[in-house]
């Protein structure tokens, strides 16, 4: 991925004012459901502490836990594969499928396979890949990536989905009732499940103690895809590990409540070994995660359980949409993960934040998101990736703020010059504040003057 300029992409998104507001409200609705669900849990804050503690501990001994997981999973009949990067991951998955002559794969949600661009890789090699989560199927039929990690089609209106289904699935022209459209997708995807030669899922949690992987869905698509075809491939990043089975209780109490406001997902399936006459393959992927573990600030983001709460609450995400980030994980967490991968391509993302801290407040594993966003900004400045005009502006501001007399002089000039300047000049294209807003009226006296009047010399 080449990355995008968040301000430019967001400008395109907000150009449709009505849709931007609709998107904002749709996500705020999910955020409110999360608030209701979390406040009904008396030990919510203690749960967040425990989740953060388990993740920190796991990361501190992750090599041991990975080996323990591999040993136990293998003992239960799973085959564990290791992939250093996306290319190795894709080659492993393709190898498993091609060796067994599988030409039809059903997939349930996996952000990791999006990260690795698995679908185009397999399709180029003659394998039909069907995303089976309803939202993912919708964006797949539109040849788009998901715009949100939990709500992949949150950017689309039901009329657009109705038209898409009319063209691709033969539903009635003009029909847009979600119930009708969901039923059509159920029938269409049920055939795909029945015809598939293998099912691929992501992994929500991998338990070192038992060698099991846990997959959470509401639709049941992961369950259809793993119980009908004889081959199940589960793809996971190394950070999905938890030490013990009892740790799952902590994360399962947090995950769905944070994501959608449900007390738990409909299906929480624990896989330990393959089904009778079947195969279970677990592909463990690094793809930059071990390097991130070495960074003492940004390693904390490896604790993310992909609930999407930071997106739903983020005032910038809600008003700019998932595609403005140009990375597979958008929003606050994506704005840390993406520049961690490629600082130059994603250098605008850490600035797509008001640093209000709402993401940190809702994060179920207590990632200090807004502090990491600030740290990532510093990293981008340190590496000289700020545009020249912004660098010059910062340098100038630095000088003005360093010397009291210079600051007072600048304020004195501004108070007189701004009211006197012609509007055309004042609201020129250089004034990005003035694009949607009026400048505040210039005060007659400064705070310094006011203070002196009341208290004498400062």
């Amino acid at each position, binding site marked *: 991925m080449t990355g995008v300029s968040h301000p430019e992409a967001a400008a395109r998104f907000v150009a449709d004012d009505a849709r931007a507001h609709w998107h904002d409200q*749709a996500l705020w*609705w999910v955020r409110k459901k999360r608030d209701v669900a979390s406040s009904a*849990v*008396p*030990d919510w804050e*203690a749960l967040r502490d425990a989740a953060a*503690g*388990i993740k*920190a*501990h796991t*990361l*501190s*001994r992750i*090599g041991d836990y*990975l*080996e323990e997981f591999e040993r136990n999973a293998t003992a239960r009949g799973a085959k564990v594969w*290791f*992939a250093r990067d996306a290319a190795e991951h894709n080659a492993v998955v393709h190898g498993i499928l091609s060796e067994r002559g599988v030409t039809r794969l059903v997939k349930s949600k996996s952000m990791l396979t999006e990260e690795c661009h698995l679908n185009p890789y397999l399709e180029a090699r003659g394998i039909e890949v069907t995303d089976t989560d*309803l*939202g993912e199927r919708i964006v797949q039929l539109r040849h788009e990536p998901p715009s949100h990690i939990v709500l*992949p089609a949150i950017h689309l*209106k*039901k009329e657009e*989905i109705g038209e898409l289904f009319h063209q691709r699935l033969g539903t009635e022209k003009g029909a847009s009732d*979600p*119930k009708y459209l*969901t039923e059509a*997708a159920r029938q269409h995807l049920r055939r795909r499940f*029945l015809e598939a030669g293998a099912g691929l899922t992501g992994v929500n949690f991998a338990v070192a103690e*038992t060698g099991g992987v846990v997959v959470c869905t*509401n*639709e*049941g698509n992961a*369950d*259809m895809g*793993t*119980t009908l075809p004889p081959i199940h491939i589960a793809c996971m990043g*190394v950070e999905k590990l938890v*030490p013990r*089975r*009892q*740790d*799952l*209780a902590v994360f*399962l*109490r947090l995950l769905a409540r944070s994501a959608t406001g449900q*007390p*738990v997902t*409909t*299906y*929480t*399936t*624990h*896989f330990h*070994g393959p*089904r009778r006459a079947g195969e279970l393959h677990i592909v463990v992927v*690094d793809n930059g995660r*071990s390097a991130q*573990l070495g960074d003492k600030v940004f*390693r904390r983001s490896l604790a993310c359980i992909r609930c999407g709460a930071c997106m739903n609450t983020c005032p910038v995400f809600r008003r700019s949409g998932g595609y403005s980030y140009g990375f597979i994980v958008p929003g606050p967490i994506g704005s840390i993960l993406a520049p961690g991968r490629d600082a130059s391509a994603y250098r605008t993302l850490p600035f797509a934040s008001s640093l209000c801290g709402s993401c940190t407040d809702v994060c179920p594993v207590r990632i200090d998101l807004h502090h990491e966003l600030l740290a990532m900004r510093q990293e981008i400045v340190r590496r000289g990736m700020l545009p020249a005009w912004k660098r010059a502006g910062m340098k100038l501001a630095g000088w003005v703020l360093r010397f009291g007399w210079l600051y007072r002089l600048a304020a004195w000039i501004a108070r007189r010059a701004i009211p006197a300047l012609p509007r055309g000049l004042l609201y020129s294209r250089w004034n990005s504040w003035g694009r949607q807003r009026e400048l505040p009226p210039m005060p007659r006296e400064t705070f310094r003057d006011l203070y002196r009047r009341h208290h004498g010399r400062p």
Partner: protein
Amino acid sequence: MAAREEILAALRRNAPRETPLPDLSRLGVRFADPVPQYAESLKSVGGACVIAPDRPAARRALSELAVHRVAKRVASLVPWIEQGSVELAALADPHELEGVDVAVLPGELAVAENGAVWVDGASLPHRALFVIAEHLVLVVDAGAVVNDMHEAYARLAGREVGYGLFISGPSKTADIEQALVIGAHGARSCTVILVG
């Protein structure tokens, strides 16, 4: 395997100083009466709970279920409540389960805080049964209602580890404009009968 060794080495090289595992013993929620709380939680996720004082009452409750009354193909793994019309033992391929109207399965325990029921994979001749059936009925001992997920895993700790899952209500989606639709890929309804 070069990839395995390299990944493990990099993870060990870059891991931070060890921090302790937190104590989970003080977590959890206690309800005054977990059974009605369970029924309420299940209702909130789109399921229905029937509390039957004994087995005859449970049989009656099942026979009165609308989805059960019109069902043609019923697969049951709880013979005392329902014999079923699908010969599960005779089915070699889970694909043959397509078209089952109602599946009646035993649940090991029910979780009051979230409406979930633990279904042990060892009880299923085909894993697909719980998700491919149009409607799902889970039969659970009323004495097996636990408060929360911590208690649920503590109960499971003594058992053989294998395939199994929590099911909380019917299959659902809200992927089209956040409108909740019941019956995405799995069961269109989920009834839990608590017995005893």
